[in-house]
Structure formats: C-alpha cells, structure tokens
C-alpha cells in the first residue's frame, strides 16, 4: 500500500516579497527517508554584479542583497578592502561602525522576535492576532525596532540600504545634538530590553535538545559582532583568511544557495551560536540579567535562539550607549587610503550569523572576483538536521498541519534571510 498526500498552502500575492522556500518531506515506514529544504537566494548573482566596480561602489551594491541586514554586508565588505589596503580606520570609525551595527541587530532581532517568532510560541497564527492579546509587548518591540532603524539612519542617512559608509570610514559624522538625542532614547530603552529578556524567558519554549556545532566570530575584548576570528565549540580558532581551508561549500541539487560544512560537518551560526561562544564577552549587566532568567548557557536547545536574540538586543543597547557616551565630531570621518591589488577578506556577524566576504581586487581598487557566504547558506544543512530531529520528537504520525507548523516553527527559529519565503512554506509529504 502506498499513499501520497500533497498539501499546498495558499500563497498570497504580495508586494515587497523576496525569495521562495519549500520543504519536501518523505516518510517511509514511519521514518523520514528524505527531507529537503528548497530555497532560492540572490547572492550568487551579486557576486557577478560587483565585478569591475570600484570598491566604494561595491559597498553600496552589496547592501542591496538584503533589506533587513544591509549594514552587515557593508561592514564585511568595508573591512575586507581596508584590510587589503592597510587602511587603519582608527578607534572613532571602528566604534561608530559598531554603534551602527548595534542598530541593525536591534531592528532585525526585534522584528524577528515580535513579528515572526513569538506568535509560534504563544499559539497565534500571526503577529496581528498576537497584538490583540499582547499589545504592550508588541508596542515595545516596535519601539525597539524603530530605535534600531534610527541608529542605522544616524550614520547611514537612511535605514534601508544605508549609504553613509565608505572604504576608510563614513562620509559624514552626525552632530553632537543628534547623538545626544538618540543616546537619551538608548538609556530609556535599557529597562525595556531587560523586560523583554524576562518575557522571552517566561515563554513556554519547546524542550528540544540537540547535538550541534556552534560557530561564530570571537573578539579579544568585545562580544563578537564587528570583527574577530572564526571559532567553534569544537576547538576551531581560524583567521578569516583561512576560511576556505576549514569551510567547504557544497552544491546540492535542491537549493540554489550553497550548503556549507565546517570540517565536514553541518554547523550553526547566529544568535544562539554566538551567545554560546561569547558568554564571557557579555557586558556584566547583561550577564547578570541572563543569569537571573535561570537558563543555563551554553544551550543545546535551538528554541533558546529567541532568548539569545533578546540578550543580544541588550548587548546592542548597552554597547551603543557606551560608545556614544563621550561622542565627539571628528575632524574627518574617514582615513585616506591607496588601493593595492590582492585578495581581501572580511567577516562580521550579521543578525543571522557570520557573513564572510572574499574579493579579488586590482591595482585601481576595482573588484575582479567576489565570493559572499551569507549565514542562511551556512545554516541550511543544520536546519534540515533540526527539522528531521524535531519532527521525530513531535511524532511523524501527526497530521500534515501539525508537521508543517512544527517544520515552519523550526525554520523561522533560524530567522533565515528568506524569512518571507519560509512563511509561505509549501510542504509535500509522501507517505509509504
């Protein structure tokens, strides 16, 4: 006897939608015999688009890869070129870039927690439903998201695809008055983020412990974000120029985004992996709040990712406020540099995980080759592992709706940059 059931989820036609995702699942004799997360991602084309362009233009071009995390793309690219050219941007540029990056973490994490992930854990179909029951929490989330957007716009001119960054620094330094105004908002936001951590910790998150490898950037004296070495909880400690010796990208037929393996194994990047690897780099206030939640980290429960995001929002508010505390307008917001031919490497921590860039650059500072490895690609193999494990845990005899909801919840939990696509998840279950 064989039975095949196809389920098709209605896909509404929406503007401002990027990407598409689908899941294929085959269940044979009560076991998963095949599971494929099918996704389509744009970065492959961008790697060709940027060829022959000057590095300053490339910084703005790669920002277009994502509307939610453009800053991450700019930061990885800018540092790659500066590293190759030997341009020491100095502490002011470095600190202000971290502040801008904090803005992106704030807005992206808040968006994910409140509009994408939390409804799953509270039993709502959408954030709109959730907003009726939890209006204060959603308002708080929107306030934090707006604050993050405004931090990006402070340095980037605008929050979507900001244009303020250049190789060597920024085009423009904000005024003391502008910085004072946003610093007051950061101070006011601090207790709100603390309350957010407590709220996330109070949610009934599934108890689903799994074995996985955490990887992410680690910096000598700050929480991994702007720069660092790639480390893992399996002992890897890699200079980002050595990336290719340890991470292998693999093409799989069912996805246009490459899968990636660290020393031959799937691995996790993103908030939970970062927190697991950076516990001793948390600001002391954040560490104390995390301890009060009673949750033990490092954690092997993927569903603790949401709590990790809230913790990272606290880090972002504390760091941004600290770095802006003695703000001064510099004589110039950038340093001079001369192009130099060679291979440039840059990596930073996008909200969703490590974002690695490699550029071949000619003597005029024009890009002749590019490779970009975004976090969602790196997490694909891990997501497939997670779905299989989580569905087994749930019970494969459950109906398709329950299986789809759990699979969607697992995928959303990674906040994939094709989040829009994974929400229109088409699932096809073959039973034999």
């Amino acid at each position: 006897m064989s039975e095949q059931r196809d389920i098709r989820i209605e896909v509404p036609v929406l503007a401002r939608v990027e990407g598409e995702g689908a899941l294929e699942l085959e269940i044979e004799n009560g076991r998963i015999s095949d599971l494929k997360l099918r996704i389509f991602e744009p970065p492959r084309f961008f790697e060709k688009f940027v060829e022959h362009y000057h590095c300053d233009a490339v910084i703005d071009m790669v920002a277009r890869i994502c509307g939610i995390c453009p800053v991450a793309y700019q930061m990885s690219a800018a540092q790659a070129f500066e590293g190759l050219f030997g341009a020491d941007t100095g502490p002011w540029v470095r600190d202000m870039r971290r502040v801008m990056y904090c803005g992106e973490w704030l807005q992206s994490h808040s968006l994910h927690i409140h509009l994408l992930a939390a409804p799953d854990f509270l039993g709502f179909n959408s954030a709109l439903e959730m907003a009726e029951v939890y209006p204060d929490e959603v308002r708080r989330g929107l306030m934090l998201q707006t604050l993050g957007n405004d931090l990006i716009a402070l340095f980037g001119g605008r929050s979507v695809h900001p244009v303020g960054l250049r190789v060597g620094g920024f085009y423009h330094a904000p005024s003391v008055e502008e910085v004072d105004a946003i610093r007051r908002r950061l101070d006011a936001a601090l207790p709100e983020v603390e309350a957010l951590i407590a709220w996330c910790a109070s949610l009934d998150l599934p108890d689903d412990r799994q074995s996985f490898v955490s990887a992410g950037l680690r910096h000598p004296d700050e929480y991994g974000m702007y720069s660092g070495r790639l480390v893992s909880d399996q002992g890897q400690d890699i200079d980002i120029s050595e990336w290719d010796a340890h991470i292998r990208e693999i093409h799989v037929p069912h996805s246009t985004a490459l899968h990636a393996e660290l020393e031959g194994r799937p691995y996790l990047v993103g908030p939970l992996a970062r927190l697991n690897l950076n516990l001793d780099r948390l600001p002391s206030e954040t560490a104390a709040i995390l301890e009060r939640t009673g949750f033990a980290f490092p954690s092997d429960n993927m569903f603790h990712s949401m709590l990790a995001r809230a913790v990272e929002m606290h880090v972002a508010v504390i760091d941004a406020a600290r770095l802006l505390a003695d703000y001064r307008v510099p004589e110039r917001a950038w340093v001079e540099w001369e192009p130099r031919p060679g291979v440039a490497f840059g990596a930073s921590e996008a909200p969703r995980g490590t974002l690695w860039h490699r550029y071949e650059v000619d003597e005029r500072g024009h890009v002749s080759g590019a490779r970009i490895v975004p976090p969602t690609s790196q997490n694909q193999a891990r997501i497939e592992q997670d779905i299989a494990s989580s569905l087994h845990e749930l019970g494969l005899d459950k109906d398709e709706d329950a299986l789809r909801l759990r699979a969607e919840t697992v995928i959303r939990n990674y906040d994939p940059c094709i989040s829009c696509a994974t929400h229109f998840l088409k699932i096809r279950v073959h039973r034999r």
Partner: protein
Amino acid sequence: MRLVLIGIGSPFGDDTLGWQLVDALAARGLRLAGWDVSFSRADRPGPSLLDRLQAQDAAIIIDAMHLGGSHGSVRLVQRDELEASGSLLSGHALGVAETLELGEKLGMLPPRLEILGIEMGAGLPSEAVDEAADLVEGLFGT
C-alpha cells in the same frame, strides 16, 4: 491640531511618486486653517510609519498604487480597499495595509486617517498636485 502628510515610497522608479507628491504639496503650501501641518517621507511602511503617526491628530498617507485610473490620477482610498494579507508573517510583507491593521490593534493610529492614492507611472504630472491639493483642502480646509 497636528496634521502630518506622509509620502511612502523609494528613491527610484514609479514607486517614488508618493515622495514626489508630498514634496510638491509641501512646496506649494496648503491652506489649512487651524492645522499645524508637517510633511514627511517614509522609505518603507512598518514600525517607522507607526512611529510617525504617533502624537498626531490627523494624518494623510500618500502612496503610489495601481488604482485602475490614468497615470497620476489621485483619489482617496478607503482602508478596506487596501489588500492586506491578514497574516503579517514576514518583515518583507509589512505593507501599508498590514501596518495600519497592526497600528489599529495597538491603538497607535491618529483619530483621523486618510489615504491618498496616486496612480503609478513615470513622473509627477502637475495636475496630480492640483488634484491632491484640492482633495486635502476639501478634507481639512475651512
């Protein structure tokens, strides 16, 4: 009484009409006695739109749309004419309709909210500015 006119759009392409129209209305100066009028551009709907609507007594949202009219024609659009997905499941899908629905549930909308749609197309015809100014003055003028 505070009234804000918010143009929604992006810097390039037909979608920039919302910005162009709000800029043109600001440049023209509207006769709206009793209203403290401000003008703003939003680069995407979502939380930042709700933030701009806070502490306002009234707001007019101006956006380029496919209304079925001729290029540049302007008309008031009812909330229920906007097609909301009703799901608000993705950051990318946070359109005007979804954002206003969320704002309503959170009590973040001003007491008076009007939506002014301009038919998509390349460039802003001057008649569109006249039409829009007439509509706004009809609604809020004395």
